[in-house]
Structures are given as structure tokens and as C-alpha cells.
């Protein structure tokens, strides 16, 4: 039974890989199946791991103590009124609450968790107290931040000193993009390694082992 599952997974992997040769019905079948299974899995997980333990069970076991859960439940269900032509504007109320909450969270999160700490981390000592390598690192950091900021400063024409600094900024950006691209290659290759490892060790070797046991 385990081997059957491995064969199905391997067949679907090969269906997806077949796109590298050219588009074909096997690829489209595997792609559609993946989309459908993912959606089914998602609905199942949401129902089993969130809606049941956090809504249904508390209401069923202690309605008087948990009646307030009906409020978020109704706000959620109200989102679906958009499919009723005469009442579709009701959904906007739920959406407004949803958007309002996440705008509030994100605003604080971006400022408190990104902008301020990142600004603070660029305030570094330009002295030998950080050691020679530390000083070099700090100089590169400050030069990079300032030159890239100037590159994105469009109120001044990029000529003379501003132009030169913005060109340095482009070099820093290119180095950043290069590092990102290198990591992207590594990530994609890792996924290929994972799948080929599965095909070789689980499918090919697993099938040979199973045949060996049978014979």
C-alpha cells in the first residue's frame, strides 16, 4: 500500500517535470489535481483545526459562557452575502472590520518592528572600538544605506556628487540583487534535489527492494 502511494506521488512528480520538455495534458492534469487537493486540504484544516475547536465546541459545550463567539462568527458568515445580489453591500461591513484590524496591526508592526529597529541598526560607531573589521563593516553599511537612499531621491537631478553617489547606490543594489539571485538558484536547486532524491531513493530503490522481497 505504501509502495502504491510512492508510485502515485512519483507519477505526479514526473507529470510536473514533463513541462520542462513541453506543455502537455499530463502536466495540466497534475497541476489541476494539485490545486484541487490543496483547496480541499485547506478547507478541511480550517474546519477541523479552527472552526470546530474555537467555535463549534465552545458553543456546544457552554453556550451561555461563550455566546460572544457568535459575533465574530456572524461577521465571518456575513462576508458571503456578497453572493446575494440584493444584500451584497452587507459584506462591506465585515470587510471593513477585517481591513481595519489588519491595517492597525500592520501599521504598528511596520513602524515598531521594521522602520525603527532598522534605522537604529544603521546608527553604528565609526571608530576602532568596533575593531578594524567591525569598522570596515560599519563603513560599508553606512555607505550602502546612504547611497541607495540617494539613488531613490528623485527631487534632485542625478548629476555631479549626487549622480556619483547614486551610481554607488546602484552598485550596492546590484550586489544585493546578485545575492538574492544566488539564493534563489540555491532554493530552486534544493527543491529539485528533494524531488529527485524521492524518485531515486523511494521510488526506484523502493521498487527494486519490493521486487527483491517478492522474488
Amino acid at each position, binding site marked *: 500500500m505504501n509502495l502504491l502511494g510512492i508510485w502515485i506521488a512519483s507519477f505526479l512528480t514526473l507529470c510536473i517535470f514533463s513541462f*520542462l*520538455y513541453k506543455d502537455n495534458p499530463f502536466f495540466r492534469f497534475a497541476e489541476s489535481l494539485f490545486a484541487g487537493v*490543496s483547496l480541499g*486540504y*485547506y478547507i478541511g*484544516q*480550517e474546519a477541523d*483545526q*479552527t472552526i470546530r*475547536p*474555537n467555535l463549534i*465546541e*465552545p458553543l456546544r459545550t457552554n453556550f451561555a459562557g461563550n455566546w460572544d463567539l457568535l459575533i465574530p462568527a456572524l461577521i465571518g458568515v456575513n462576508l458571503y452575502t456578497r453572493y446575494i445580489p440584493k444584500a451584497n453591500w452587507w459584506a462591506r461591513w465585515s470587510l471593513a472590520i477585517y481591513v481595519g*484590524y*489588519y491595517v492597525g*496591526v*500592520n501599521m504598528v*508592526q*511596520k513602524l*515598531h*518592528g*521594521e522602520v525603527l*529597529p*532598522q534605522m*537604529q*541598526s544603521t546608527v553604528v560607531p565609526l571608530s576602532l572600538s568596533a575593531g578594524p573589521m567591525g569598522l570596515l563593516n560599519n563603513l560599508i553599511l553606512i555607505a550602502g544605506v546612504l547611497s541607495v537612499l540617494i539613488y531613490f531621491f528623485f527631487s534632485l537631478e542625478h548629476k555631479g556628487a549626487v549622480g556619483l553617489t547614486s551610481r554607488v547606490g546602484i552598485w550596492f543594489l546590484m550586489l*544585493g540583487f546578485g*545575492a*538574492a539571485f544566488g*539564493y*534563489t*538558484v*540555491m*532554493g*530552486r*536547486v*534544493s*527543491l*529539485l*534535489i*528533494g*524531488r*529527485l*532524491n*524521492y524518485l*531515486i*531513493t*523511494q521510488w526506484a*530503490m*523502493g521498487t527494486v527492494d519490493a521486487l527483491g522481497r517478492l522474488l
Partner: protein
Amino acid sequence: MDWLNRLMALDRRWIFLLVAIGTALPIIFPIGFKVSVTPPAKALFDRIEQMGPDDVVLLSFDYGPSTAPENDPMADAVLRHCFSKRVKVVLLSLFPIGGVTMADQSLARVLRDFPDIRRGIDYAHLGYKSGSQATMKQMGEDIHRVFPTDRYGMALSEVPLLQRVRTYDDMKLVVSFATGIIGEWWANLINAQFHIPVAVGCTAVSAPKYYAYLQSGQMVGLLGGLKGASEYERLVIDRYPIVEAAYTRAGLYTAIKGMDAQTIIHTLILLFIIMANVAFFAGRGRAAQAKR
């Protein structure tokens, strides 16, 4: 210069085939390239190494099957490290498409080598919860309210380990194995608001942006892609030789094994880039000559 035209017109499917062969050969015939350890991985290792049996680490499985070849080895390695140190572990997932299944599978793989680790006492599995940032923030107030039951349907008040774990204050570290933005939220929302140390094991694609959080001190460690995972595996094997048996088991996919293929393919890609540039510039020079 006929070779130049042929090189420029090369069907890219030949490159795909070469990459496939270059990946498959080291899997069949492992080479065993040396793995060097970088400071971000060592920092996470040292952080867990300093913990004791009363300390609790939260492991958040924020990835799905689409990035399992990168995230699985790092999750397994960190879990093996925690269980070797007898550090208590709380697992959960905030990633909807497969996160909780990844946690289940990682736990199953690692528990094979730790038969004396007990559910509910040495580790607890909270399962998956939707709500992302809202869930993470609420966990800072009361985990028992967010997760009324654990993955196995047991009330949290009945799980011995969770009786003393109610908020982030009761934990020493959060490690998120992340494929997308959820890892960032641990750093820029939970670390910023609740000051719990955060480390992230991320996919290689998203690694560059995490270095900014590491540099600013919002994260205490980083495992970037398969390379980061292989570094952590190396650290755990070197410190706990008993774990080595698990990593040499036939058929088990590990990051150290994967790095053999990774190194070969990177060399191959570098050669392709050099060849393509030579062909491009030679072709441009020839076109300029023809013009004159």
C-alpha cells in the same frame, strides 16, 4: 566560429538534462563535501545549547510541502537537538497548506530515534490555527484561549507541559521554519512586542531579507535554505554523536547529502554563465568587426 552559433542556439532542454544528471549522480554516489558552519547557524545552536530540561522552545512549522526539501532537514535537526538536550518543545503551525502535516511528519521522523521522549511531558503539539498575526498576538496573552485543545484533541489544561506554558513569557525561544512572510512576523511583530528571542529557518529565496533582522538584533539566529540546514545538521552530529546513526540511515533525506548535489549544480551553473558570457561577447565582437 561555428561553435559559437551552436552555443547561442542551444536548446535549453539540454541544460535541463545536464542539471538533472548533475543532481542525480551525487544522490546515487554521495561525495561527502565538507560543510563549513557560519555564525548565524552557530548562534541558534549555541542558544539552544545553553538551555536546560526546564526550558521550553516553541517550534512553528510555517511551511508546506512545496518547500519541504529545504525546511524539513532544518526542522528535523533543531528537533533532534532539542530532544538530545531534553529541552521541552511546543510545536504548532500557522501555515494553512500543509504546515500541520509537516509538523506531524517531522515529529514522526525524529521520534523514531528518541523512544523515551513522551508526548505531553517532553513535547506538546498544538496543531494548526488560522488568523496569522491575530493568532500570534493573542498567544502573547493566553495560548490556552487560542488553542483550546492540542493536535490530538486533548484540552491544554490536561497536557502536563502546557500547564506551565501560557504565554511567550514561559518560553525561552521561538524558532519558525518558514516559507513565506510568517517568519518575518515572528521577528517584526512578536519579538518587537513581546521581546521573546526569535530565530528563523527560511527558504533560500527569502534568506537575504532575514539578514536585515539578524543584523538589527531582532533575530538571534538564521538557517538560510539547504545550506543553513546542513550547517545545523553538522553542528548537531558533531556535538551529539548518538544522533549520527539517524543521519546515516539509508533512504533518509538530509541537507548534508543534498549539499553534494547543490555544489555540483552550482559549479555547473557557474560554467553555463561563463560560457554564455564568452559566447555573447565573442558574438558582439564579431558583429562589430563585420560592421567595420
